[in-house]
């Protein structure tokens, strides 16, 4: 599997994503600068990394979502290319219209930075299948604007159609219905505030993130 990570100014998790992808796929991962206009045709999976692209100016992810490379990402994602966004990457995917809803300031106004327990609410997807029967995982969270919002009709539709893949145990940010991670209608675009790419080595304090990436690898 050939993977790529998009690099935005002031995003700081691109290295983490590259390291995780290379560890799990055993192949070099490509870093793509945000001013590029095309994702190479042979790329099988793209990560939109976390961080604070453009200093969170205007709204988190707003500027990055309008960058030239995201224009091509939207086109390719709509054509079926698997894409995952973590943290700022989730905000960017929502701002780009690839995922429904938006991320608001955390309900308690605090920056939350800790290992976070999550419930796997749909283990039968290309992002969760390798977890087998495992019900819970721990991924780190580190964000100020992770309060997931969408109107009630959208939330019900997401839940009914199995597009909510993870829910928070002890909701850290006020997200609607404890939703942590969602995918698009076709199931090839996924976003969440927690960081599976920061849970792939015992030195990270946990390795629960490995099976997230293994799922994608095995679903090919």
């Amino acid at each position, binding site marked *: 599997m050939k993977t790529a990570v998009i690099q935005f100014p002031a995003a700081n998790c691109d290295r983490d994503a590259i390291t995780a992808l290379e560890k799990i796929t055993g192949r070099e991962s490509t870093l793509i600068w945000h001013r590029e206009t095309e994702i190479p045709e042979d790329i099988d999976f793209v990560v939109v990394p976390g961080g604070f692209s453009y200093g969170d100016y205007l709204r988190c992810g*707003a500027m990055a979502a309008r960058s030239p490379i995201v224009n091509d990402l939207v086109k390719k994602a709509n054509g079926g290319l698997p894409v995952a966004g973590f943290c700022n990457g989730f905000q960017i995917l929502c701002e780009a219209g690839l995922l*429904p809803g*938006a991320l*608001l*300031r955390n*309900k*308690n*106004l605090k920056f939350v930075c800790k290992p976070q327990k999550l419930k796997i609410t749909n283990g039968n997807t290309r992002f969760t299948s390798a977890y087998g029967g495992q019900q819970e995982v721990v991924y780190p969270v580190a964000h100020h604007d992770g309060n997931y*919002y969408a109107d009630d009709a959208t939330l019900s539709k997401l839940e009914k159609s199995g597009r909510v893949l993870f829910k928070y145990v002890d909701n850290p940010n006020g997200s609607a219905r404890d939703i942590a991670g969602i995918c698009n209608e076709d199931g090839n675009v996924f976003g969440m505030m927690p960081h599976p790419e920061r849970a792939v080595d015992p030195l990270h304090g946990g390795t629960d993130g490995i099976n997230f990436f293994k799922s994608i690898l095995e679903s090919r």
Partner: protein
Amino acid sequence: MKAIVHIGLKPGVLDPQGRAIARSLGDLGFSEVTGARQGKVIELDMKGNDAEKAKASVIEMCEKLLANTVIESYKIDIEA
């Protein structure tokens, strides 16, 4: 010409910053404040002097970038 764009969270969308502001004003003794909503103002310097044309163009800017209409609404004032 100037376009002044007021952007705020839609009614019903939780605004924890506005809530914190209202609480702090209460702590300062302004007991008449029953709520606060925080938004932002963007001032655009614009070429030309056709207000109607400018407004149409700023609406497009709001829909494409300035506002996230999932959570925000906007109001545009054009000044000569």
